């Protein structure tokens, strides 16, 4: 479903070139549960951003569901992000002036879905993340764990194929972190492909496949049997 071929991403900093990703080859199957680990600066976020079509490689190919994404323009990539990909971030990225309900509604607002359908889907997403009673709360009125659950609800309302999570528990205490992990693992069990960046080894070992990066290269790729 996801295939990377000799994919590189370089950054120019001053007159130096940083190889954030260096000729990475990678294939990820549908409904897999993959953790990406590595020290800070090893290229985890860069990889995730490219998988999520937020960033484009300097060279190499990214084939998503059989389509080579290198030929896509901004709007096409936005379309894929809207329908096929869900994102969760370490810092939640909720819009502070909108309620939980409205934040979850946002991807559907952007794709022009009518309010009735939106409302139905938001409510079922709220139910899945266990926040039905917080629907009218602004982010500032929610705890970190609750905020991340709102973000998860937002990432799944469009029923994507892949969920990309960049250190989703990085800003959370252990208890709410565990809740969040359980939640996204449930989503994976229900059919979603899950790719999680983490530096928490315990969490990494819960996945079916653990990929380790260093200096933009995959140095370890192990599957649970």
């Amino acid at each position: 479903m996801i295939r990377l071929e000799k994919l590189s991403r370089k950054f120019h900093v001053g007159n130096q070139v940083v190889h954030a990703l260096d000729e990475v080859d990678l294939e990820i199957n549908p409904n897999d549960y993959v953790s990406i680990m590595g020290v800070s600066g090893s290229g985890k976020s860069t990889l995730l951003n490219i998988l999520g079509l937020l960033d484009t490689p300097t060279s190499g190919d990214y084939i998503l569901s059989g389509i080579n994404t290198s030929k896509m323009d901004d709007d096409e990539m936005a379309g894929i992000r809207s329908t096929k990909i869900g994102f969760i971030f370490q810092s939640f990225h909720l819009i502070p002036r909108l309620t939980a309900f409205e934040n979850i509604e946002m991807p559907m607002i952007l794709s022009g879905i009518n309010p009735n359908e939106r409302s139905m889907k938001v409510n079922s997403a709220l139910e899945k993340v266990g926040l039905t009673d917080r629907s009218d709360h602004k982010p500032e009125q929610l705890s970190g764990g609750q905020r991340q659950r709102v973000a998860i609800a937002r990432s799944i309302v469009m029923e994507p194929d892949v969920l990309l999570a960049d250190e989703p528990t990085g800003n959370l205490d252990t208890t709410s972190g565990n809740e969040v992990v359980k939640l996204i693992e449930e989503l994976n069990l229900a059919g979603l492909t899950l790719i999680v960046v983490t530096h928490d080894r315990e969490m990494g070992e819960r996945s079916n496949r653990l990929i380790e990066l260093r200096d933009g290269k995959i140095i370890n790729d192990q599957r649970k049997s």
Partner: protein
Amino acid sequence: MRLSDILFLAYTTLIRYPLRTIMLLIATSIGVMAVILLTAVGEGARDYITGEFRNLGTNLLIVIPGRNETSGGGGPIDLAGLSPRPLTIEDAQSLSQIDNIRRIAPVVIGEAPAQYDGLERSASIIGTTPEFLSIRQWEMESGSFLPGASMRYSPPVCAIGKEIKSELFGDAVAVGEWIRIGDRRCRVAGVIAEEGRAIGIDVQKTVVIPVALGTALFNRDSLFRIIVDVRTTSRMDQTKQSILSIIKRRHQGKEDITVIKQDTVLQSFDNIFNVLTMALGSIASISLLVAGILIMNVMLVAVSQRQAEIGLLKAIGAKNKQINNLFVVEAIMLSGSGAIMGLILGHSITQVLKVAFPDFNFLPPMWASYVSLIVALISGIIFGLLPARRAAKLDPVEALSGNK
């Protein structure tokens, strides 16, 4: 994305940053208010001036000697009465054959010393007929105006203005006394109550004498003008043509007079004041531009403040165009609601001014409201466009890591 959703999202940003919103609303509303108020003053001044003329009635035609080359156009009019062929009292008399003419007042004007009992002062002299009184809608303070008689011959009688009366007679009775005007003598029939001006002359310093006496006094053939009072204003143009053709026949087929409507004079003033009002409006519009630039700056700040949000929107599938639209609509909402606030303020203040200065009619013209609203909206769009473009072009990864 649905329009209602775009509007809702833009609205949430406006209430989220109330201080910023209020500041921009004030800036825009001051601009719009300035347009309304300044044009109200300009329009009020126009109304005031033309109102003075309108008092004279729109049913007057003025015949002046000399051909005005651009007549009909409302261009410069030769009011000096310089003409090779004189416009005579007989010409004036001949106009009485036109049905639609109710009153005819031929006019000669000049200056002459007025004397009584050893006192002398210079006076403006108007030579005319009794009809002049009703055409001008003057009142008499005492006595009567000129006696009804033929234009050609009239007894030596005069009506004097209030200042002439008080300077020559003091508190004594003037009516019935004989005064000397230049080398003629005439009896005072009455004192005119009017204090304003007529044909540019201060009525209080005027002595009105029969027209024939006037031409004799100044030893002049030509009239200064003939003022004609028309019965049916809807037939004004026909009457004008009749006058032209009658005088032309009398002047050996030469069309050497000009007939102007009181309206035409009014129209020139109207035009001058319209230009003035528009100039005032345009100057005020500059403050709208300033408000627009302010909106642009604030929107640019908003774009950098909301980088993370823009990145997030892109991550969840927003197209560049949609980000652009969100920011443009936000700018339009700011300038639009500022403009509406300015309209309300401007019109309310005008109402207050009307009460405070009842003599002066503050009239904000309709176009000022439309134009200022449209200018405000357009400046919202134009000045919103640059920040919106900037937002739309942000790189999603960089934006997401930007300040929250």
